[in-house]
C-alpha cells in the first residue's frame, strides 16, 4: 500500500516539475535554516570536544553585590575573595575550578601585532575539561601552586608563533609577560565558552588582589553524578544567602548569584532581556525559552508553508476527477487525506534530505567566517531535530489542503466543476 502511495506521489511530483521545484526550494530553504539554527544552539549547550562532560558541570559566572541601604548594585564576574570564601568551600561538587574569562592580550613580534585570547586557570580546570593534548602536557597543580611562568597554547597559536619548529620549551611573549610553552592542545571553538582560549597560563601568574569581591573570574562546579546537580545548586544558594556584609572597599550587604547548567544559562541570556527578568537571579527560564523558540520557528515556517499549501491546493483541484472517482468508488475521506498527507510528507522529506546535504556547507561557511575555530557540524541531535522539523513542516503545509480536499463533492468533481 505504502509502496503504491510512493509511486503515485512520485508520479504526481514529476507531472508538474516547476511546481515540484518551487515546493522543494521552499522546503529545503526553510529546513536548512532551521537545521543550521539548531546546530548553532546545540553547539553552545552541548559543545563536545574538551567540554564533552558538560552535563556534569555547573557554571557560576555572574555575581551581583548590593548595598540594600542605598539600593545600589554592582554586577560583574567572580572576584577571588568571593571565590575563596563562598565557592571553594562548597561540599557537594566533586571538583571546583576557578578561572578567568579569556582576555585579549596583544604582543608585537617583529612589527606584527598578534592578538591572542589568554585565560588564567587553576589545575582543576584541566581535570574537569578534557583537552586533546597534541604535544607536551597541561598545567599541573605544581605549576599553579608555585606560579610558574608556563603556558599551554592551542594549535593555531603554535602554528602562527612557531611555524617551523616544535613549540614545546619555546619562549612565548604575551603582553609584557613571557612564558615557557609546556603543551599544545587542539583548538577549541568560541562556542565552547569554558574551553575556548588561545593561551592558558596558571592563575597564580597574575599578582591577584585577593581582597577583590568582584572580578573577572568564573567558576566550574563538577559533579560525578549529574543527579546531584540540584543539591549543588541549593548548597550554593544557601552559601550566597549567608553572605556577610563587608565594608571594604565599599559596603555590600547582599549577594545574588546562581549556578547554571549550560542550557539554563543560554535560555536566561536569550530571553531575560525581553522578559525584563533579573539575569542574576533567575535560572528557570528554560520553559520560556523553549516557548519563544517554538513561536519563532513556527513564524519562520509560516510563509513557505502557506506557499506550499497554495500550490498543493492547485494540485488537488487538478486531480479532482481522480479524487472524485475514488470517492465515488467508496474510498473514505480519511484514506484520501492520508494519501495526500503522505504525498506532502514525501515532498518535505526530499526537502529535508536536500537540507541535510546543504546544512553542512552552510555550517562550514559559518565555521570559516563567523566563529573562531568553529566546529559546527551535523550531529545526531541535529539530525533528530531536522526530522522533527520535516514532520512539523509537512503537517503545517499539508493540513489546510487536506481539509479542502475532504470537502470536495464527488459528483461535482466528476463533472469537472471544482469551485474551491
Amino acid at each position, binding site marked *: 500500500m505504502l509502496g503504491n502511495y510512493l509511486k503515485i506521489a512520485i508520479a504526481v511530483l514529476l507531472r508538474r516539475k*516547476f*511546481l515540484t*521545484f*518551487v515546493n522543494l*526550494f*521552499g522546503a529545503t*530553504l526553510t529546513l536548512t*535554516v532551521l537545521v543550521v539554527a539548531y546546530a548553532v544552539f546545540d553547539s553552545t549547550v552541548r559543545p563536545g570536544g574538551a567540554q564533552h562532560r558538560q552535563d556534569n558541570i555547573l557554571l557560576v559566572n555572574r555575581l551581583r553585590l548590593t548595598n540594600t*541601604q*542605598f539600593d545600589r548594585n*554592582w554586577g*560583574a564576574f567572580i*572576584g*577571588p575573595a568571593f571565590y575563596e570564601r563562598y565557592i571553594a568551600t562548597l561540599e557537594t561538587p566533586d571538583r571546583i575550578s576557578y578561572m*578567568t574569562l579569556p*582576555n*585579549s592580550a*596583544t604582543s*608585537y613580534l617583529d*612589527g606584527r*601585532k598578534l592578538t591572542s585570547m589568554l585565560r*588564567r586557570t587553576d589545575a582543576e580546570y584541566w581535570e574537569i575539561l578534557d583537552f586533546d593534548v597534541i604535544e607536551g602536557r597541561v598545567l599541573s597543580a605544581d605549576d599553579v601552586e608555585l606560579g610558574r611562568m608556563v603556558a599551554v597554547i592551542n594549535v593555531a597559536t603554535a602554528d602562527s608563533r612557531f611555524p617551523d619548529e616544535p613549540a614545546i620549551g619555546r619562549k612565548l611573549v604575551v*603582553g*609584557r609577560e613571557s612564558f615557557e610553552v609546556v603543551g599544545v592542545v587542539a583548538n577549541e571553538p568560541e562556542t565552547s565558552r569554558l574551553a575556548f582560549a588561545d593561551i592558558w597560563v596558571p592563575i597564580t601568574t*597574575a*599578582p*591577584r*588582589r585577593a*581582597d*577583590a*569581591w*568582584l*572580578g*573577572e*573570574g568564573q567558576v566550574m562546579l563538577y559533579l560525578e553524578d549529574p543527579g546531584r546537580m540540584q543539591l549543588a545548586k541549593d548548597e550554593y544558594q544557601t552559601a550566597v544567602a549567608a553572605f556577610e556584609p563587608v565594608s571594604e*572597599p*565599599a*559596603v555590600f550587604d547582599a549577594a545574588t548569584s546562581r549556578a547554571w547548567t549550560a542550557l539554563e544559562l543560554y535560555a536566561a541570556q536569550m530571553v531575560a532581556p525581553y522578559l525584563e527578568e533579573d539575569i542574576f537571579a533567575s535560572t528557570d527560564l528554560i520553559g520560556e525559552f523553549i516557548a519563544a523558540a517554538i513561536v519563532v520557528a513556527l513564524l519562520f515556517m*509560516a*510563509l*513557505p508553508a*502557506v*506557499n*506550499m*499549501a*497554495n*500550490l498543493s*491546493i*492547485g*494540485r488537488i*483541484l*487538478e486531480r479532482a476527477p481522480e479524487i472524485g472517482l475514488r470517492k465515488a468508488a467508496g474510498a473514505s475521506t480519511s484514506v484520501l487525506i492520508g494519501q495526500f498527507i503522505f504525498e506532502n510528507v514525501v515532498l518535505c522529506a526530499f526537502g529535508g534530505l536536500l537540507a541535510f546535504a546543504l546544512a553542512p556547507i552552510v555550517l562550514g561557511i559559518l565555521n570559516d567566517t*563567523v566563529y573562531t575555530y568553529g566546529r559546527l557540524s551535523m550531529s545526531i541531535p541535529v539530525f533528530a531535530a531536522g526530522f522533527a522539523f520535516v514532520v512539523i513542516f509537512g503537517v503545517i503545509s499539508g493540513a*489546510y489542503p487536506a481539509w479542502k480536499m475532504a470537502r470536495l463533492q464527488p459528483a461535482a468533481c466528476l463533472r*469537472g466543476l*471544482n*469551485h*474551491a
Partner: protein
Amino acid sequence: MLNHALKLVWNRRRANFLVVVEIAAAFVVTFVLLALAVNLWSNFRRPLGFEFQNIWSVAVSADEAGMGSFPFGDDEISDTLADVTARLRALARVQAVEPIAMPPFVNFVWDTRLGADADNLVSVNINRTTSAGLQAIGVSLVEGRWFSAEDEGQDYRAALVNRAFVERVFGTDASVIGRQISFPDPSAPLQQVPQWQATEAQRAVRVIGVVEDFRQWGEFVETRPYALQLHEDVDARGASFNLLLKVTPGTDAGFEEDVIAAVESVAAGWTAAVTPWQQLRAQTHASTLLPIKIASTLAVFFIALVVMGLIGVLWQDVVRRTQEIGLRRALGADAGTVRRQIQLEMLVLGLFGILIGAAVAIQFPLLEIIEDVDWAAALPALVLAALLIVSLVLLGAQYPSWLASRREPADALRYE
C-alpha cells in the same frame, strides 16, 4: 475593467484567500527588513559628531590580571595616571593625550536620568572627557562655551549636551545654558560611603554649552540624548582608564608598541592596550551588519520563493480556467485583453494582500514591538515594501498571463 476584476476576485474569494495571506506575509517580512534598512541608512547619513581617523584608544589598567578591576582606587593611582599622560604627551608623534571615560564604538553604556526639573527626568547617556579631548576629535560647539579651569572642583559638574538632549529635555525655544539638569537629594544618607563619593553625589550637573553631537556607538545607532561631562582629577580613581591619543597622520601600528612601552616605563605593573578608533569602528560595523546580511540573504530567497509560488498558483489557475478564457476569446476578446485581465486580477489580489499586510505591519510601530528601531522609518518602508510587492506580483503574473493569452478559443472550448 477594474470593477470587473474586483468582482472576479471577490467571486473566487475562497480560492484566493490563501494567496492573499501569502502576499500579506511577504509584505510584512519585506516591510520589517526595509524599515530596519531605512532606519540604518538614515542613521548612517547623520553626522557622527566627531572624527575617528588618527585617534587611538589607550586602555590603561592598574590591575594587570584584571582580577580585581573594581571601580575604586586611591590617590596613588591618580598620581601615576598623571605621569602616564605626561609621558605619552612627550612622544614625538602624539598630538594630544586626554582622558575619556568611554571610547566610542565600544559597547560601554553609562546612563543616568537627567532633566529640566526633578519630576521630568529622562534617560541620558553620559561620557566624561576634557575640552582638549573634544577639540582633538573635532566635536563642534554650537552654543555656549567649552569647559574651562573655572569648572573644576565647583559644587556643580559642567556638562556639554547634544542637540537631541536639548530637544528632548527643553524643547526648542528655551535657553539651556547654565541650566541645572540633575537634582541631588540633600537628605540622602551618605555617611557610609567614602568622602569623595559623598561629595560627588551632592554635585548637580549644569549645562555650559551645546555640541553638535557625539554618537558614541557609531553611525548605525540612533542619536540619543547625550551629556559630555568634564573629566576632573577626582575621576582618576579606579583600576582602569581610557585615554584618547591623537597621532600624526600616517602613524602605523608599529607605534602602538612604543605607546605601550611608554606607559610601562612610568607605571610599574600597569598594562596598556592600544586600538585605533578606526579599528574599533570597523569591528562594531561588522557586528552590526552581520545579522542584517544574514536576514537579507534569507529575505531574498523567501521573496524569490513567493514569486515562484505566485507563478505556480496562477499557472494552475489559468489551466483550470481554460473554458472561461476560451469563451472570452471566442466572443471576440483579443489576446492583450485576456492578458490584461489576468494581470489586473493579480494586481487586485496583491493590493488586498498589501492592505492586510499593512494592517498587521502598522502594529509594530504602534506597539513598539521592536524597540531599537526609530519608526520614523516606517512610512517610507511601508511605501517601498508596497511598491516592491506590487512589482513582484506583476512579475509573477507575466508568464501565466502570457500563457492564458495564447489559449486558442477552439482548444479551450473543446476542453469539455
